[in-house]
């Protein structure tokens, strides 16, 4: 036993020496006024990592004095970022999801950008206003949307054909199409529609009925209206009638997987589903269509910004990177690769994305107020309970209203 321990000891010393020596190698220093910038975020796929690396390399060619270290964070992104904010050692430029933006802006960890706009004559006009507003707080802009995606309706075209229905464009048509699919057994072993027990998928239907989550000023919840209730009952009705099932009931992690596994014919997902289907389920034939409409058209826009850290040590270079990535040229390089839609009106989307872009005028940002996560937790847990028959719709609405009022008060 002792001999083994001694061998271990020698190995350990060797390992420690080796790794200390590796650490001692001097860091590459870049001469010149601009210096090092750390870019961070998360990678939603291997392709995203590769694509962004390409864009960064183009940037470095254009600005040879700035060296960018691209370090996406694996794991719990908000947790890792908060630790870095708290220790005043954040990355210089990084992603901020629109749903957490209100909290991060209120916490003061992001650098206000208005002064950079005026100093460097950077115009924010081309950005879609609804997307930009998600990153504006008390008159200051704290991030520029790097891309976005609305929800769309993806339908398995062969199953649609089998059922002998056309593409549904209204709520009644959706129900009728799903019923036909059931009757003709177009989705063996699955369900015509896949619906998530998620308010981030339910809310567009509320907008389509003419309802809303918050009032225009954003100061109070308005879910207790006939319009909102109509939408919620429609959505829940699809699930309880068996025309729709949740992803876990279809053996999938999300509806995109259900579509790929051919356990559902109709799903409501965004641009992120397209590369996923292409990589994971290349043989499934499906097409993207506009969301159905109720009384009106309505949709949600999911977006992420590039923002600068308040504690960034190299703000000048960070601004150069940020403005490049969100400028017309940089954004085009990024969105041409098809992972998301451009958030600027002067950048054309990649091929095959026109349906999604057409949703832009009706899309409202998925971004509300600081402390929204608590409300979102109540929303989804209650919706799950409603789907499983353990709660009624009015009870859910009451819970959400109460939670919203409480959160807005803080």
């Amino acid at each position: 036993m002792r001999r083994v321990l001694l061998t271990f000891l020698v190995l350990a010393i060797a390992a420690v020496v080796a790794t200390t020596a590796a650490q001692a190698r001097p860091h590459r220093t870049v001469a010149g006024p601009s210096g090092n910038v750390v870019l961070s975020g998360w990678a939603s796929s291997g392709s995203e990592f590769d694509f962004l690396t390409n864009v960064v390399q183009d940037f470095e060619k254009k600005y040879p004095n700035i060296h960018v270290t691209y370090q996406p964070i694996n794991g719990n992104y908000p947790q890792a970022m908060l630790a870095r904010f708290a220790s005043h050692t954040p990355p210089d430029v990084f992603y901020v999801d629109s749903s957490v933006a209100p909290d991060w802006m209120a916490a003061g960890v992001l650098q206000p950008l208005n002064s950079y706009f005026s100093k460097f004559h950077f115009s924010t006009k081309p950005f879609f206003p609804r997307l930009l507003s998600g990153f504006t707080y008390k008159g200051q802009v704290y991030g520029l949307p790097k891309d976005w995606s609305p929800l769309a309706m993806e339908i398995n075209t062969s199953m649609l054909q089998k059922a002998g229905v056309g593409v549904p464009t209204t709520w009644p048509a959706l129900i009728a199409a799903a019923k036909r699919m059931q009757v003709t057994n177009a989705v063996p072993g699955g369900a015509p529609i896949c619906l998530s027990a998620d308010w981030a998928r339910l809310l567009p239907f509320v907008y389509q009925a003419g309802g809303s989550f918050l009032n225009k000023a954003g100061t109070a919840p308005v879910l207790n209206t006939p319009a909102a209730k109509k939408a919620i009952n429609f959505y829940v009705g699809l699930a309880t009638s068996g025309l729709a099932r949740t992803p876990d009931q279809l053996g999938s992690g999300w509806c995109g997987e259900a579509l790929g596994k051919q356990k559902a014919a109709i799903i409501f997902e965004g641009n992120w589903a397209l590369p996923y289907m292409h990589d994971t389920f290349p043989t499934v034939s499906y097409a993207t269509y506009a969301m159905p409409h109720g009384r009106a058209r309505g949709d949600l826009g999911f977006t992420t910004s590039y923002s600068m850290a308040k504690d960034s040590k190299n703000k000048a270079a960070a601004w150069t990177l940020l403005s490049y990535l969100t400028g017309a040229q940089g954004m085009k390089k990024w969105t041409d690769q098809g992972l998301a839609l451009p958030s600027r009106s002067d950048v054309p989307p990649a091929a095959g994305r026109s349906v999604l872009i057409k949703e832009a005028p009706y899309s409202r940002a998925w971004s509300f107020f600081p402390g929204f996560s608590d409300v979102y937790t109540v929303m989804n847990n209650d919706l799950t309970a409603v789907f499983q028959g353990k709660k009624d719709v009015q009870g859910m609405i009451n819970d959400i209203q109460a939670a919203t009022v409480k959160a807005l008060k803080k």
Partner: protein
Amino acid sequence: MSAEAYRVRGGRPGRAREALVGYAFVLAPMAVFGVFFLFPIGYAIYISRYNWGVYGSQGSVGWHNYGWVLHDPIFWRSMRNIGEYTAWVVPAQMALGLFMAVIVNQKIKARTFFRSAFYFPSIASSAAITTIAIFILNADGLLNKALSLVGYDHHTPWFYTTTTAMPTIAGLNAWTTSGTMMLFYLASLQAIPNDVYEAAAIDGAGRWRTFWKVTFPLLKPGHFFVAVVSILGAVKLYDQAFIVSGGTGGPDYATLTPVLLLVQEAVQNIRFGYAAAMGVILLAFMVVLTLAQRLLFGRSEAA
């Protein structure tokens, strides 16, 4: 010269020297304990009395955070969840671990093979195992396919049904940690000399009786250790709950554990003070639990 005489001769300077050596030997762990545990706990108690944001205090709230935590029904739901989970997982872990340890402690053929097989689930990281388990326990996954062969055709999504979510996680963890518990019990089993078994055999005790009357009681230090480690590990459940529910604690709060709630408060709501209060309450709960264990199961080790 008898041992007693030697000790008496040691006298007071002997005691002082023994104490000094004792302190020297435990210096390193105590330093780690002080710096990386005591200090953070103190820090947590400090900030729990404030509204604490990313960059520091946003105003004192006295001890009110504790009051708010204790009045939060969601906090109590998470405590109920973890109580249910612990009640499932701890007996399962201990029983499985002991069972496997006894088996692989025998001089049986292919002992190494069995030891490796039993330990295997513990080897992989919890994240990897959970990801695989999600796949196998899907509505149309391997387990449900096997169950439908024996007539259970319900295709339950085990991790996503409110009644089965926590017990499924408990089953998964019992299975993956049983190898580690097996190791602990194995070490304890090794401390029992062979002669004890021989004496029991001479006395005519069968295998079963030998186990219950001889081995089991002699394993008291092992039982205490495994029980404490098992319970404390169970109360701190986070990883699997996070992965399975995607960080939400769903479906319908079924997998919300206290630590998951703590992380949600700290990271999503950026309420470090409130989260710290929750953590301190959880810590106090575990201290009381461990003390109770020690008192109930008494002087299980030579003082």
